[in-house]
């Protein structure tokens, strides 16, 4: 098992390397002088020259890449000339809203989707199953910003139960913090719920046909006990996998949701940085999101060994 864990961790290295190369090349693929692009429109010639030296732009591309990676690893993401801050500072400021939104969404999605999926599988072919699966196709199809505005209109404008937009830091009070997260997390959770519910249903259906489930029923165990103890546990691996893979959808959704709800997080920062052609920030945010995604899936793969002791690599 230790061998598997080590191999799995090592396998992330090429992926992260390729991501780093892609992100690095992003700026080199634009037409024009990268230093001038980074410095922005209002930069002086001297500033541009400084950046050129700092990035090592006169050196060969490979050397530039090594310099760049070295800086990234040390946490020096460069400077945002648009926001007049270092990129590291920018990211630190914007981390909390995004983390809060993501965690809330994942919790909400798992709590809703797993029971729905199990229910649909247990009542296969009935109207319950059809409703859950129909909603899942719907949830997969309605784009996140459409859901966002529909929820805002219903719960914030018409019913006035919740604030329309904005974000409040956790330090400024828990209720205000939570209140402003309910709508964004629900919005973002829809596609995630659709995804997890589908996989849960499929995975549970597969296990339901297994011999040990028939044995458990033959022993006279109740339906709920069979489902929870004998089925769900064995169906867990695909469900956990899709929760991990779904983080890619979640990150994409964060970018949109934060724009809809005016949440000053990393997603909003990405859009603002792209609109301002602030490439150091764009590079850092993409690298960060991708590394987080790879790490989450690494963790997911590692949990297999605990979830299913039969898995031996």
């Amino acid at each position, binding site marked *: 098992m230790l061998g598997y864990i080590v191999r799995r961790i090592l396998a992330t290295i090429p992926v992260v390397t390729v991501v780093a190369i892609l992100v690095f090349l992003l700026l080199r693929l634009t037409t024009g002088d990268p230093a001038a692009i980074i410095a922005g429109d209002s930069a002086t010639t001297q500033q541009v020259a400084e950046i050129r030296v700092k990035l090592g732009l006169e050196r060969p591309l490979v050397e530039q890449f090594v310099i760049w990676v070295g800086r990234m690893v040390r946490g020096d993401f460069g400077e945002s000339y648009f926001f007049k801050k270092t990129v590291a500072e920018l990211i630190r400021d914007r981390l909390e809203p995004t983390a809060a939104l993501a965690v809330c969404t994942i919790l909400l999605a798992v709590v809703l989707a797993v029971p729905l999926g199990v229910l649909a599988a247990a009542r296969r072919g009935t109207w319950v199953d059809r409703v859950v699966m129909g909603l899942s196709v719907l949830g997969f199809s309605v784009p996140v910003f459409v859901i966002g505005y529909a929820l805002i209109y219903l719960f914030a404008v018409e019913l006035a139960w919740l604030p329309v937009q904005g974000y409040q830091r956790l330090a400024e009070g828990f209720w205000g913090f939570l209140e402003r997260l309910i709508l964004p997390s629900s919005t973002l959770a829809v596609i995630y719920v659709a995804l997890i519910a589908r996989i849960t249903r499929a995975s549970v259906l597969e296990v339901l046909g297994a011999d040990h489930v028939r044995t458990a029923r033959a022993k006279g165990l109740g339906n709920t006990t069979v489902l929870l103890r004998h089925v769900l546990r064995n169906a867990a691996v695909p469900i956990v996998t899709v929760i991990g893979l779904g983080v890619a959808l979640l990150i994409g959704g964060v970018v949109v949701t934060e724009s809809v709800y005016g949440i000053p997080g990393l997603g909003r920062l990405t859009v603002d940085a792209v609109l301002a052609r602030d490439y150091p920030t764009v590079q850092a945010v993409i690298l960060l*999101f991708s590394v987080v995604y790879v790490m989450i899936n690494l963790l997911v793969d590692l949990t297999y060994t605990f979830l299913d002791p039969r898995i031996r690599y």
Partner: protein
Amino acid sequence: MKSAFNRSVLIGSAILAVIFLIGLAAPYLGTRDPGQIDPISRNKRPGAVRILTSADGRQVSTTYWMGTDSLGRDVYSRVLYGARVSLLVGISVALISMAAGLAIGLLAGYLRWLDGFVMRIMDGLMAVPAILLAIALVSLSTAGLRAVILAIVIPEVPRVVRLVRSVVLSIREEPYVEAATALGARTVPLIVRHVLPNALAPLIVQATYVCASAIVIEAILSFLGVGIPPQTPTWGNIMAEGRALFRVFPHNILFPGIFLAATVLAVNIMGDGLRDSLDPRLRNRL
């Protein structure tokens, strides 16, 4: 193989056909120039009627079925014309990524020495969330239809490559492929004759999902203001322009939103139907 025309496929393709026709026939469906700015009829609610008396005393009445936006442009016309961009992007992205994915996937699956290198790049591309990669790519060039299509194709290609490669890997071990190799079949005709037909069914299903995801990503890019500029109406940028006054005039977001959701839903329903009829083994998968 059951008939490909099961109920889901029929429903999905019927809705799509309607939207396709709407986009195609947009100029003949009582629309006006979707870009025409009209300061005196800004922010009209859906169904509002404006009656103008011309110089010779004739009365001309205009009905804004879906209201107007904050520049007085007719939302009905913009939404109908917007169907063109969504379908064009969806279909082109699906076709281009299928073609590219098929070529790369066949090569990677068949030429062992290329496989490792190509798949590492694909893994790397897949590690960047699709929307994020598209946003970053679109920022590299001036926004326009071509840039948007390319920016959506790149994140979609690796998913197709993986699919094609997995089909190739499972088929190259089949006795009939071995037999063909033993008989001296050359690589390219072998791929075309024996491997390609097996990859077709899952590929068609995948194409519908790529199409749905492309339509959503295009709308998101336009909505965020990094996609197609508002001179060309798209459902995403109509919604983007309705954002500021959303609480008072929700129609700017409502109507394009309904069309967008209906289109994506239709493509997904069609995809699910095709999957069930073309490849029953996939039925319980995603």
